[in-house]
């Protein structure tokens, strides 16, 4: 099952890199959203997959007596999901505001902060 998921994760990464290489901000953002999901799936898979064995410890024992599903990656993924969701929300608003103010969503044309035709620094006085 890890193999299958690994292929899927690879596909996610490929799609997200392809989208992030675009110059349109909206596509980049979609790429970032997919990247976040690819990472989450990867952490989940990295914790090894065990189906249908909840990590419960029987009474009077200190450790589970059978191999159980790993609960830690789920905690990690939960943290990462919350973080990537909030960042995605922020970036969506930011790019929308940038589109409103700058009138473009093409990264190549966003040159207000670094103008192309900036004169060279003064050579002497």
């Amino acid at each position, binding site marked *: 099952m890890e193999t299958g998921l690994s292929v899927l994760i690879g596909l996610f990464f490929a799609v997200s890199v392809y989208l992030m290489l675009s110059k349109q901000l909206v596509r980049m953002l979609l790429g*970032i959203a997919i*990247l976040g999901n690819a990472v989450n799936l990867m952490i989940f898979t990295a914790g*090894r997959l065990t189906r249908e064995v909840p990590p419960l410890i029987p009474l009077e024992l200190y450790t589970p007596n059978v191999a159980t599903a790993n609960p830690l990656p789920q905690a990690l993924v939960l943290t990462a999901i919350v973080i990537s969701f909030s*960042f995605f929300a*922020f970036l969506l608003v930011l790019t929308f505001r940038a589109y409103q103010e700058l009138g473009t969503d093409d990264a190549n044309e966003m040159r207000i*902060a670094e103008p192309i035709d900036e004169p060279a620094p*003064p050579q002497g006085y």
Partner: protein
Amino acid sequence: MAGSSVSVDISQAMITAPVSAGDWLLVAPSLLTILGGSLCLMTRKNTKAQPKVGLIFLVLLVAANFGLLVRVLDKGVITMVMGNWLPPFGIAFTADALGVTLALVGSIVALCAGIYGSVTIQATERRYGFYPFLLFLMTGVSGAFLTGDIFNLYVWFEVLLISSYGLLVLGNDRLQLDGSVKYGILNLIGTNLFLIATGLLYGMFGTLNMADLAMKVAALESGASGPLATIAALYFLAFAMKAAAFPVNFWLPASYHTPNIVVSAVFAGLLTKVGVYAMIRVFVLLLPGSRDYMADLIAVVAIATMMTGAMGALAQSEVRRVLGYLVIVGIGAMLAGVAVGSILAISGAIFYAVHSIIVMTALYMAAGVMNMLGGSYKLRELGGLYGISPVFAAVFLVLGFAVSGLPPFSGFWPKIMLVDAAFDDGRYLLAGAILVSGFLTTLAIGRVWIFAFWRGGPEGTADGTVIERVVPAPQLTSAGIWIPLGVLTALVIYLGLQPEWMLQLVTRGASGVVEPFGYVRSVFGGL
């Protein structure tokens, strides 16, 4: 399980000894800043109370970090595990000399920025949360310096990143939105790379505790090859992005000149240095084998970073953008320390980080004063500032000498250490690049001084003309400007003249990561 008769021996899973009172200091920096930030958030609309609340908590933060430093110097590395779970299961906070030194210097800089901000930040920007964001940024920075868990380090990175987004867009004008888009997207990709590497590391070793990882990696027979090489490369790319090292540095000059000058000052002081800190932590403490393996690559990146930074600074005519490139030069010098990797080199890198945190913040603050006095950030429009304030001209010259690494100021000693370490390792090119970049930095900052301070007036003013200032600079006399700038400049001079104790501190920090016995023992007790 109320009423259950099963008696449980919790000492098998948890630490039962109470945490000694002094060790609680370990969580104080993060807790204080979260508390202070929340209080500021609640009093958001009371723009008069905001700076007071913010400054009180920033003073407390400095005090807590200072107490922590004293305790670490006294007792060695200290560890506290969240929820008292036995390591490596609980999230550990581990304070060693490296982390605490940077946390202390970082908090001093944040306090200075808080004071400076009480003058330069307008009521509107206060209402939109300058002080809450500043405090939450410090939560992230302190947490990153003090945590002993690599996933937790990622979380603190995100805390400081989201706060920095807030600070960066404060004011909301076109320039800022343009800069923020680039800063935002590239930094988010950087932290995602960090998370990918951490996920793979967890898949390989099944643990996230740094001390545990250091032991497990050291016990690995295959050394630095195989999957570990991939992980190390990903970490390198991720932290290089955070630190603005050469091929992935473009977000820094695109964004650091756009926000309010005090925000730029905090960013230039702290953000990239957290990236360098993470690189030292991961490559020297966790993956020393991979550091050896990648040393040549790191050296090439360091040289390229120093050179792009220095050339970039020479090509700019806007003071803040010159400074942005000078931040990058410093990053290159610190990476040179990581590339060499001996105790001397890492000490030099840590000392350089301390110096760079102080001097870059001070330089941006000075740029703010230049704008107040001369009405512009552009070299063509500035001039005659020496006539307005000779003292300020001297302060800027001191900071300029320090950032170029000239004696007798704070930049001199770390550069000597780095060059010395590079020679010891036979990396003559690296040593040469450190010296050449220092020379080019002197040219770039010297030009700023000559144009803005030394010549009589803006471009086109004939030699010898005396310019009458009709409007005296209103904020020049404000203590909120002079105190932070004065304190940071005094620190720069003091570290230049009296470097011994800082040398001892950084050497202790460096030996703590190069030979991590103390670090591991602190987490795992007597094992």
